[in-house]
């Protein structure tokens, strides 16, 4: 079933000095439960696309459909995660996690119970009264994920959520987040510039051109090994082939 559909999306940014075309004629369909990565040269308009899907930016042309309904403003079906965790330093982990519920006036027993369950399941229960400052980068990112999941979105938009972490933590957190997301059965669109990360996480990798972003190729990722996890698939024989294909497609030169 098609969960999300981007139809002919174009975005133009205007400044006094002129206009910049960030995205041009972008078409994409995402199946329910799919994990999609967008890779492309930096500054190509990947994040802009996420902002359009989230309903934060109005496209100059085209429409976004979720479950066949047009999106014009931020929707409850979508959760957004940023490069930084953006936990509020003045709130405890628990207070941070209930933020979305608090804003939408949904602090009822049922939702809080679910949260408590998630905190427990994902190992943050004993840290719930800590301040973000007291947690490691990986735990903070996990807390940010639970904050997003608290509103029970169907689709997660991840804007380079691992980039701010150091390499080792990043591998561990990727594994961690992947398991949580698969567990909760979410549909994901993630933006990254890390080719390995994209291959290790996605069902499909969407390769974008330089600005204005257009789809160059969509690569289906299949591994011969069973019960894939982001760490395990890095050892799969197909991994380096996918890497080479994407690397060539991206056509990156040092200028």
């Amino acid at each position, binding site marked *: 079933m098609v969960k999300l559909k981007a139809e002919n999306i174009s975005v133009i940014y205007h400044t006094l000095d002129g206009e910049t075309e960030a995205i041009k004629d972008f078409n994409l369909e995402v199946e329910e439960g799919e994990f999609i990565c967008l890779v492309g040269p930096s500054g190509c308009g990947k994040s802009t696309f996420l902002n359009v899907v*989230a309903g*934060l930016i109005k496209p100059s042309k085209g429409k976004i459909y979720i479950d066949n309904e047009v999106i014009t*403003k*931020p929707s*409850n079906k*979508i*959760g*957004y995660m*940023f490069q*930084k965790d*953006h936990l*509020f*330093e*003045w*709130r405890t982990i628990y207070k941070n996690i209930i*933020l*979305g519920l*608090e*804003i*939408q006036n949904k602090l009822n027993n049922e939702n809080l119970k679910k949260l408590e369950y998630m905190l427990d399941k994902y190992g943050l229960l004993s840290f719930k009264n800590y*301040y973000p*400052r*007291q947690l490691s980068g990986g735990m903070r990112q996990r807390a940010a994920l639970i904050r997003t999941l608290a*509103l029970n979105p169907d689709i997660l938009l991840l804007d380079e959520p691992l980039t701010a972490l150091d390499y080792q933590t990043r591998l561990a957190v990727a594994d961690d987040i992947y398991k949580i997301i698969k567990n909760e059965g979410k549909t994901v669109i993630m933006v990254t510039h890390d080719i390995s990360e994209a291959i290790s996480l996605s069902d499909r990798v969407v390769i974008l051109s330089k600005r204005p972003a257009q789809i160059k190729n969509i690569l289906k990722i299949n591994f011969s090994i069973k019960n894939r996890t982001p760490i395990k698939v890095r050892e799969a024989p197909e991994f380096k082939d996918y890497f080479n294909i994407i690397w060539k497609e991206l056509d990156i030169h040092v200028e």
Partner: protein
Amino acid sequence: MLNEAKIFSKEHEIYIKNIKRKKMLILFTQISILIILFALWEILANLKIIDPFLVSQPSRMIKFLIKLYNNGELFKHIFVTCYETIIGFILGTVIGTIIAIILWWWDFLSQVLEPYLVVLNALPKIALGPIIIFWVGNGKTAIIIIALMISLIVTIISVHSGFKEVDEDKIKLLKTFGASKFQILKYVVLPSSIPTIISALKINVGLSWVGVIVGEFLVAKEGLGFLIIFGGQVAQLDMVMLSIIILSIAAYLMYAFVASLEDKFLGWKN
């Protein structure tokens, strides 16, 4: 994990002890300086090396203090000045923050008013003293308004610029939750600006004292500023010096109170 009692090594105990000892030494030196200063002042004045008519001396100040206390005027003067300062300080901070919120809410207005704020900020507010006295009369109201004027513009400018420095992504995060503008203000903009607001408070404490004392110089018939200017006019340096010392203590206490707010509201930082 954090609250567990721990058994420390010998080295750590010595480390803690050294830090405590250093703190005590600093406090001891600070108090000693004060005592020596006053003792020297008293002795030099008694030996007529310095002229007590020009610089007064601690024993005369104490005598004057007792006299003021006995005729019931001491607390009246202190109270009047503190009252004016606290009211001016609170009004300056509250009104300034409210105006900053309005400017954040309505960007058009903030851009229109920007040059006016710059001019008002650069203007020495004391220059408006005579106009204020002309409008509201000779009295406490005029003094409070002068104190308010001095801290208001600084508050507006610093708090508003604090609001504008709030992380755009944090605001975006709230928008993805479907937050209204008021919720963005309540959940992100105000709480993340609390450090800015508290540092504005600290500056305002000092500015309010300036406003009140200058205001009292201009119009008052009571208050510490009045005692200072009156003492100068009648060549009563005991009165002037004593008032300045009381003023210092009051200003310090008020600053300490504001600083304690910092610990209360920024507890999450430690």
